[in-house]
């Protein structure tokens, strides 16, 4: 069996902070000395590369190239530890074992995937091979919000599924659907993370209420903060501002993930 764990990060609705959370969790795992990969399977609307300082000019081969047989997994892995850029937070990742496997941000390549569909045998082969080729401890998968087939595939192969929700009734209902699916797929470890909670709320009460509602563990309740919005995806917030409340709670979630045997 592969030794690396697949951690899928999902939210039923968009705008929950999924990519930001995924990037920061992966960075925390790398800082803890783990070998970490981050795959952007949000092929239709990729975005996590921005948090790692990549743009179209720096991006080499992508998941799209792999799916079309034009690149190997080895060629796609972008070593963040060797390319941290100028950002103060990301600079802490220098020399760390963290690779990003980005999706293409070229309009033509996105439209090609939508037009031609996805070879799931190839996609799954890519995800599993990534772990063995890079000898990863953790492969974080940033999924497309809502439930599509790529997301179901990543949930089905996950060791850990982290579902992100806001304390909002639309998110609560959607999360309930995702949890039902995850349980049908026998995901071994299911965790929830509440993000963008108004600071005036009682976070301990939110945790209790949601755990009771879903019978699942809440790994963290993270506050809504203008500071994170002000960061504008320019840097990895939890590395840049480690003493911020959001960063402290995020580290708690990372610890919960790393504690899974």
């Amino acid at each position, binding site marked *: *069996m*592969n030794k690396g764990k697949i951690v899928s990060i999902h939210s039923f609705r968009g705008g929950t902070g999924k990519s930001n959370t995924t990037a920061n969790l992966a960075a925390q795992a790398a800082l803890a000395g783990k070998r970490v990969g981050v795959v952007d399977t949000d092929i239709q609307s990729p975005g996590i590369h921005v948090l790692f300082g990549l743009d179209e000019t720096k991006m080499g081969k992508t998941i799209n190239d792999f799916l079309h047989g034009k690149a190997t997994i080895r060629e796609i892995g972008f070593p963040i530890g060797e390319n941290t850029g100028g950002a103060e937070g990301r600079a802490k990742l220098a020399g760390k074992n963290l690779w990003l496997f980005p999706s293409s941000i070229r*309009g*033509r390549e996105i*439209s090609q995937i*939508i*037009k*031609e*569909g*996805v*070879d*799931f*045998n190839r996609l*799954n*082969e890519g995800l*599993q*091979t990534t772990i063995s080729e890079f000898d990863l401890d953790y492969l974080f998968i940033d999924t497309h919000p809502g439930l599509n*087939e*790529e997301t*179901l*595939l990543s949930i*089905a*192969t996950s060791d850990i599924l982290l579902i992100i929700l806001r304390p909002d009734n639309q998110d609560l209902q959607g999360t309930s659907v995702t949890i039902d*699916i995850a349980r*049908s*797929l*026998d995901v071994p470890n299911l965790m929830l993370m509440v993000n963008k909670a108004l600071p005036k709320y009682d976070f301990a009460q939110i945790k209790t209420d949601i755990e009771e509602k879903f019978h699942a563990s809440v790994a963290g309740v993270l506050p809504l903060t203008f500071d994170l919005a002000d960061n504008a995806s320019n840097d990895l917030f939890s590395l840049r501002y480690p003493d911020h409340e959001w960063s402290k709670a995020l580290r708690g979630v990372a610890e919960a993930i790393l504690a899974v045997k």
Partner: protein
Amino acid sequence: MPGVFDRLNKEIENKQQEGGITPLDLVELPAPLRKIMKIMLRELQMTYPRLCEVMDAMPEEERLTRNLLDEALSTLTQQFWLVRIGEKEKAIYKVNLKRKSGSTLSAGIWSSLDKKLKG
């Protein structure tokens, strides 16, 4: 001249063109079949003896008996959700996922979009 490995791979690829399971089907599968499919999704391909080893290493309450395993493998291969190359002890199984179909929008829309994106 292609070797045995290349020929086997080609044979598997040809068989994978036929049918396949969708990620949505996985949700609906009976538990024993889903258990095997999930192992295969992670391992990509396995020999029958290796699959038996993995099964034997599972906690007793999760383990499938050899008869149940054989029955499940037979169902999965008949449906082309697993592709089998070879027979009995020498059989190699590989998961077969159905391709996600592309958009059904008319070709004209795509060609127009393509021209615009080429800029």
